[in-house]
């Protein structure tokens, strides 16, 4: 099933907004049940560690729930720690909300081809060509800079500096090197792009023509929108 990146973009963005504004746990459950399993399946190439870390993060959400929303009747009493109803409810709501947001992003990630996305941003969504060029350069550079970053961190260790640039000082030091290398590249990429006619580029508008894959996604989205609105009205 093939979907237009435009549809996927609209879908993921809308589901995220719906999840952010919904307060009703039933709606959040519905959104999460729709998006997380589908997203996990489609986005499985993201790797096991990605999902493991996500579930590790749940522990933190639980701690925060206990810290900030521990009201109501006690559900669990383990010595000094008393978990109350409010904390459990808060935890579940936050968990469901984040899950549908992640699910939607993974559906997008699993189905959208980056090449087609760049094209759709320019031709269908009518984002200015320069901005799309920036994004393309950003994505190209990301792969390059990840390699640079690894190298820089190894060299820092060799020189007796921290491998984890987390303090403001070491972050500055790390960023100076990374940015210096990246800016030199950026400058020349810009010069070459101009000499290859970037400013002559004209948009080739392409009307949005939804196919079966798009219709399915849009129906799913309409369903979630209806659920959310109904819960707010009723």
């Amino acid at each position, binding site marked *: 099933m093939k979907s237009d990146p435009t549809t996927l973009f609209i879908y993921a963005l809308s589901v995220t907004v719906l999840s952010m504004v919904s307060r009703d746990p039933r709606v959040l459950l519905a959104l999460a049940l729709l998006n997380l399993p589908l997203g996990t399946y489609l986005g499985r190439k993201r790797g096991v560690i990605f999902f493991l870390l996500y579930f590790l993060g749940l522990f933190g959400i639980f701690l925060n729930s206990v810290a900030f929303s521990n009201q109501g009747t006690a559900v669990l009493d383990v010595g000094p720690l008393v978990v109350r109803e409010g904390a459990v409810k808060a935890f579940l709501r936050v968990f469901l909300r984040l899950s549908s947001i992640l699910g939607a992003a993974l559906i997008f990630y699993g189905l959208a081809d*980056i*090449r087609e996305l*760049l094209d759709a941003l320019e031709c269908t969504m009518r984002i200015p060509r320069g901005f799309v*060029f920036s994004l*393309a*350069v950003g*994505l*190209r550079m990301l*792969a*390059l800079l990840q*390699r*640079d970053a690894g*190298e*820089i961190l*190894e*060299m*820092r260790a*060799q*020189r*007796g*500096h921290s491998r984890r640039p987390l303090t403001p000082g070491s972050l500055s*030091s790390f960023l*100076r*090197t990374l940015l*210096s*290398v990246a800016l*030199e*590249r950026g*400058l*020349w*990429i*810009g*010069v*070459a*792009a*101009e*000499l*290859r*006619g*970037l*400013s*002559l*580029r*004209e948009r*080739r508008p392409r009307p949005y023509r939804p196919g079966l894959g798009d219709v399915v996604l849009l129906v799913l989205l309409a369903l979630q929108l209806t659920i959310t609105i109904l819960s707010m009205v009723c």
Partner: protein
Amino acid sequence: MPPRGNWSPLGCLATPRPLRIPYFPHLYYHYPMSGVEAEISGAGYGVKAILHDVRLSAKAGETLAVVGRSGVGKTTLMLSVTGVLDNLLGGWTRGKVSLAGLDPIKRDFKEVPRKIGIVLQDPDRQLAMPFVLDEVAFTLRNLGLPEKRAWGALLRFGLAHKAYAEVETLSGGEKRRLTLAASLVHEPEILILDEPSASIDPWGVGDLKRYVQTMAEKGLTILLIEHKLGFYRGVFDRILLLEAGSSTWAGSVEEADPRILEEHGVDYTLIGRPRERVFTGERVAFLRDCEFSYDGFTLRVDELDIRAGERIALIGPNGGGKTTLLKILGGFHRCSGEISVAGRAFYVPQHPDYLFVRPSVGDEVRDAREKGGHEPLGLPTGIDAGSSPYRLSHGQRRWLSLAIAHAFRPRLLLLDEPTTGLDLFLVEQLTDVLWRLSKSGLSIVFSTHDPRVVMSLADRVLLVADGRVSEIDVDEAISMMLEAMDIEI
């Protein structure tokens, strides 16, 4: 209109070289004057002039090499004649420039892309798109040409099977070919190459030369900016020598005096100066049955001994495992088998910038002294201690990286392509320093694509290719590299 014959975007594939029919017949009729003419009486940024008096002339179909040592203004000249200096970088040019009949500096800057193709030093500083096909299609879409033509260019440069691959998965040689494909796909009249061989292995240089030669035979006007002229012998008609921002000599290749060229830092003869061997018997490091794998690539070293004062060159194609071997010796990669290094090993990466951690040169030196425990190597005069290390010239940065390494007093110095981007003089200086250090007992392992550096520095040569390491004779190595580059001495 001239007859177009059976020309088609894919025509270049169907017709083997050499082509009798001019490749771009229609272009000649539309633009009878498509060379480059420049009379520049000054060019630079702000109050600083980099070019003073340059006369450049390449007639249609001519191939011109602009030569001169680092920092004489070769790149500024390229930026000036394409109009980039004035229109994009906020610089200025005084004088007249005509590029394929256009005035790139004032009126026609926007039209320049239709007429020229440009290939820059480092593919990573040119390739803008995340995917191979899009890089070529980028040129076409910008110029409003049919994007289907991209396939023809990819096929011609042997990249069609990687059309949908991410650019970052290509090897250095493939990236270089991609820049050529993306610069020639719109059939420009003029091809400008800025040190295109700086980042590729000898085999890539051979390929590049053959492509350039083909383009020249097809009637393209070619402008090459280079200090390693020796790599391109037989390819170019004319030479323009730049000296401190002015053109001082122009003429045909036959008229050029190799001695004078070399006096101006232009590599022509490609003969290195062998230095005496100084190594002693004491073993500094050894590897036994060492194996290291990553991303499906395995490097295997059966046996390697490194003795004090020895200088070992690693040669071989890009992606063959040279850097991996250096990093194993540097302790960055852990390999199975036995490995031992007596004392400290220090690795200096190909981009010296990676090594810098401080905002100024003075701080860098102090930091190296403090963390390394010894006095760093002295820096050449002319480097301001208050300057940012990232603002130094490439040669100065290379020097600073060596100075830092020296502060750690390693027994084993590991250098990843230490001479890339350095001109003849700088290479001489560098090899001199390395020779002096090795006399004091330091062992040096360096990777290189430059046969001259092998000639002047290597006691031993290891060929690292396809994950295997084998020792070969120094002379054999040099002739192998020259042969790959298609150079006869």
